């Protein structure tokens, strides 16, 4: 699917840099030992900006839920409608979610609860994006 190109910004630069190296990292507060996603300027628990780091993830998770987009706002994705947008829960912490188009899974045939693994797809400007596929 033709995802918009991603332009990393200050807050997310490390997340996207890791994706370009086929690595998944998630922001972590060392003081709270707690992951958070999406990334924030401060820990959502202790409000500290001084203990945030980027922690490597194993790249495995499960499909928690999904919806099927029939009429979405992003013009470049219109030719692919209807398409899945699944919620993935990470193996390290089931409270952390990522979205996925689930490449290879037909629309509205999403196996909720199935195991998935991360892959990295190039977006329109070449920036790689974490995606997920069902483990068979």
């Amino acid at each position, binding site marked *: 699917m033709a995802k918009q*190109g991603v332009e990393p910004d200050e807050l997310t630069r490390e997340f996207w840099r890791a994706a370009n190296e086929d690595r998944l990292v998630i922001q972590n507060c060392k003081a709270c030992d707690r992951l958070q996603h999406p990334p924030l300027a401060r820990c959502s628990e202790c409000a500290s900006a001084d203990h945030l780091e980027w922690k490597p993830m194993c790249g495995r998770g499960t499909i928690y839920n999904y*919806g099927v987009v029939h*009429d979405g*706002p992003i013009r470049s994705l219109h030719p692919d409608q209807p398409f899945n947008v699944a*919620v993935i829960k990470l193996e390290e912490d089931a409270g952390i979610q990522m*979205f996925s188009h689930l490449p290879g899974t037909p629309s*509205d045939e999403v196996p909720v609860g199935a195991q998935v693994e991360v892959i990295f797809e190039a977006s329109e400007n070449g920036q790689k994006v974490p995606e997920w596929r069902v483990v068979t």
Partner: protein
Amino acid sequence: MTTPDAPESMFRSEVGLGVWEHRGKVAAVGVGHAPTSRRWDGRAETCVGQISIDALRQAMDDAGVAPGDVDGLVIDTHTTTGAFWPRGNPLPMEVIDSFNRTDEPLDGITQLSAEWILKNMPELKNVTFTMNGIGCMSRAICVAAQAVGDGLTGTCLVLKSWHNLEGRYYQGGAAAANTIGGTAAIRGLWGTPACYGTALQFAEYCCKYGKTHDMMAPFMENSRRNGLMFPEGYWAQHRPEELTEEDYLAARWIAKPASLFDNDIPIMVSAAYLYTTAERARDMKQKPVYILNHASSRTRARSLTPTLDEVEADTARTAHKIYEGAGITAADLSFENMYDGFSLFHQFHLEGLGYRGVGFGEALDFYQTDISIEGPSPVQPSGGNVGCGRSRFWMHTDCIQQIQGRAGDRQITGVKPEVAVSGGPMPMGGDYTVWGASPD
């Protein structure tokens, strides 16, 4: 003159605050609505600034209050339904120059400030208190209630207005760009429409409790029916069409399981209320509707989108705050007017409240019973956004009018309208008001 945003200290967002210190000491007495339209037609007479002025003047007239007696104004400065002035398009100078402008040229066109209102309503010559209640009317009226209770203003207008321009909802602009910023991409790259998060929660709800999307049909029919009896609403004014079960079930998906009718229709509209002290309200034209409490939720999801567990925990917590501050229980509610835009989350609000004893997972079965305005358990007598278009304020107007006994054809008849609750927008993150016929 710069208007401050309301500080978080004005909102009652914690459990355990006890009965609201101003319970029954603040009242709503006037309502004003501008006519609705689907989109702005480019004329000065219909721009968001002018319809706001129209609504404010109506609210004062409705309350029988002279403009010189008003000393406060609370507004939401954001007026967009999802439409923004297209970058590069020439500004509508003829319209802009037909008003007294502020430093921001699109003030009164695609946004609104208290300064713009006061420059263009010279009759509000004694307004000394202004404050922004950003988000929607639900939040603005909490600010007005607290401000009147705290003595910051004695007679306060509260305003919420919406503009809508040509083009599709949230399409164009960033959605049509070739690139997206890194932070926005975490959520925005996947092309989900606004209803997606609610669709997810509804899917999880149906899975957990064994319910189906078609069980929403009676709620949708009831909402449109009530909306068609709301003369201020969009559907009543422009498209007086019933919504049948067949229509609802045949609607195309937007983000399955959310269909077209589960989304509200963006419109232009403005509403204003007049708030004052209970003491002053006694001498005004309309029967006072007393504010028994206001409560807020500021809970955020742990990650990208709220899970059903998070939603249910928060609606229960919000209900606790609503009841605790008003000194009531669920059994005291005559009716409910919680938010419905998107329709698929109204049941979360309702279940959190325990309205008519409905528990988690039971609302869709409750929808199959008599939820009409004639029955013992009115659900959303306003018709809400489903029945009237996207404003997020029909529910408040309806609570006021029902309790005043002037809801017209919509007037509930199965129960006596004495205590009601309204508010929103989201089940996690919203602002709520408890209304009463009596201050006690």
